[in-house]
């Protein structure tokens, strides 16, 4: 048994060597496919991550009527804090709001300074957990209208962002499946050519009494090696792209999303290698069988 296995491996390696060019093409195509798959996974993983954090962090600003007394404001804050979906409530006094405003719009500094501390109203900054557009809507409805002059939660922006996300997902899915089909086709095709290239040899093997298994086995090993090599290259490529992106993003937006751009975790990487191997072995299997069906 081990001797047979040895023979299969020897024949596979020999074929890899003798058809180095075609095998390199196969491995390259598998690498490209797997890389695209990896990029797709990465984007999905990171977008999900971001949407998760963002969902958890949904903010509402509720502006008090200027005539609500300060004690009442604290009571309202405590009531809201008791809601189960509320993570955090922060009271922002009128003074604090104006300081923030000054920082944000330095052009108006002088103007605001002249106007005194009542320029901007006091407000509550409310953080909701696991909220979606509709949930926020519902929550805003529960707030008492007598206490607040206005409630601001950028609903339109949320909707637009979600529209944009779904556009991205659509484009990603369309392009992704097109590219995947093209890649599968190419892998099948190159492996088929490796087989075709050795048509004569395989026919003669059959004529001297080789079983289908004898002929197929080395091709499967060959496909496995191609697949693993391809996945390895894809992994390296993915790491390089990730590195480049993180470094460049750090330079451009000092604080923003950098920290959240994560590399694919272990199980996903394992999936890449499984996908590459399946691609290699599957394409080899189909190609050899398609060929053997025609030979007697």
């Amino acid at each position, binding site marked *: 048994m081990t001797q047979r296995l040895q023979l299969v491996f020897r024949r596979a390696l020999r074929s890899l060597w003798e058809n180095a060019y075609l095998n390199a093409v196969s491995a390259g195509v598998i690498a490209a496919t797997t890389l695209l798959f990896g990029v797709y996974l990465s984007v999905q993983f990171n977008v999900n991550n971001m949407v998760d954090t963002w969902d958890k962090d949904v903010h509402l600003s509720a502006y008090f009527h200027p005539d609500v007394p300060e004690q009442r404001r604290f009571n309202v804050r405590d009531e809201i804090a008791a809601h189960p979906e509320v993570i955090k409530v922060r009271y922002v006094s009128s003074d604090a709001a104006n300081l923030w405003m000054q920082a944000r719009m330095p052009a108006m500094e002088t103007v605001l300074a002249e106007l005194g501390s009542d320029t901007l109203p006091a407000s509550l900054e409310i953080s909701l957990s696991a909220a979606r557009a509709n949930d926020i809507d519902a929550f805003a409805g529960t707030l008492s209208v007598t206490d607040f002059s206005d409630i601001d939660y950028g609903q339109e922006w949320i909707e637009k962002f979600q529209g944009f996300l779904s556009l991205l997902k659509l484009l990603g899915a369309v392009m992704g499946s097109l590219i995947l089909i093209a890649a599968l086709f190419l892998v099948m095709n190159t492996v088929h050519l490796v087989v075709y290239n050795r048509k004569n*040899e395989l026919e*003669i093997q*059959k004529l*001297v*009494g080789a*079983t289908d298994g004898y002929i197929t086995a080395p091709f499967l090993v060959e496909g496995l090696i191609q697949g693993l090599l391809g996945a390895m290259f894809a992994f390296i490529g993915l790491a390089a792209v990730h590195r480049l992106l993180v470094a460049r993003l750090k330079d451009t937006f000092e604080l923003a999303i950098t920290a959240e751009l994560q590399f694919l975790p272990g199980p996903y990487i394992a999936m890449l290698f499984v996908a590459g191997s399946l691609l290699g072995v599957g394409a080899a299997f189909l190609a050899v069988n398609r060929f053997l069906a025609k030979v007697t």
Partner: protein
Amino acid sequence: MIRAYHVAKRYGDVHALRDVTVKLAKGEFCYVTGPSGAGKTTLLKMLYGSTQPTEGKLLVGGIDVARLSRRRLPYLRRNIGIVFQDFKLIDSRTVGENVGLALEVLGSSRDLINRRVSAVLNIVGLPGRGSDYPPTLSGGEQQRVAVARAIVNDPSILLADEPTGNLDGAMAIEVMEILRAINLRGTTVMVATHDTGLMNRFPYRKLRFEAGRLVES
């Protein structure tokens, strides 16, 4: 060993063989002869299952080759040595590997393969050519490699299609001696040939075909 009952083979309009009934005992030696296009190669091809008869019944060692499944076919062929009219050597494998292939598919050990290969290359007059590639051999040398591969695993049936067409007289006689020796050890041998000189020198039973019909047997 070989029994044909009213076997016929048509390729479209071409009747390659018509109503052939013949019986060959185990250990027999016979020639298949007749003019070009008479159906000699077609008969041999049916015997090793490369094509099926369109009519009749063909038994090889008790097995009906027309009914043989794809899966069983290799096991039939392992008992048959074949010298193809066009040699069918693998150009990208050395002579030694080509000859050894018939043993490798049986799962023989590397050691046994090496010993048998150099033995049969000696027999066909190509000692030391085991590491050459077929395209660097002359026509006659390639033909002898084909003979070597056919006999390397001591088959119970040997089918040789025009095995001396590219050989000079002396070499042709040597190859015939080899086939006779194998036959004497019990192998059933069938040789398709045109060479009347050879058939007279080694007189055996003749199956003569003409336009697909068996006219002498």
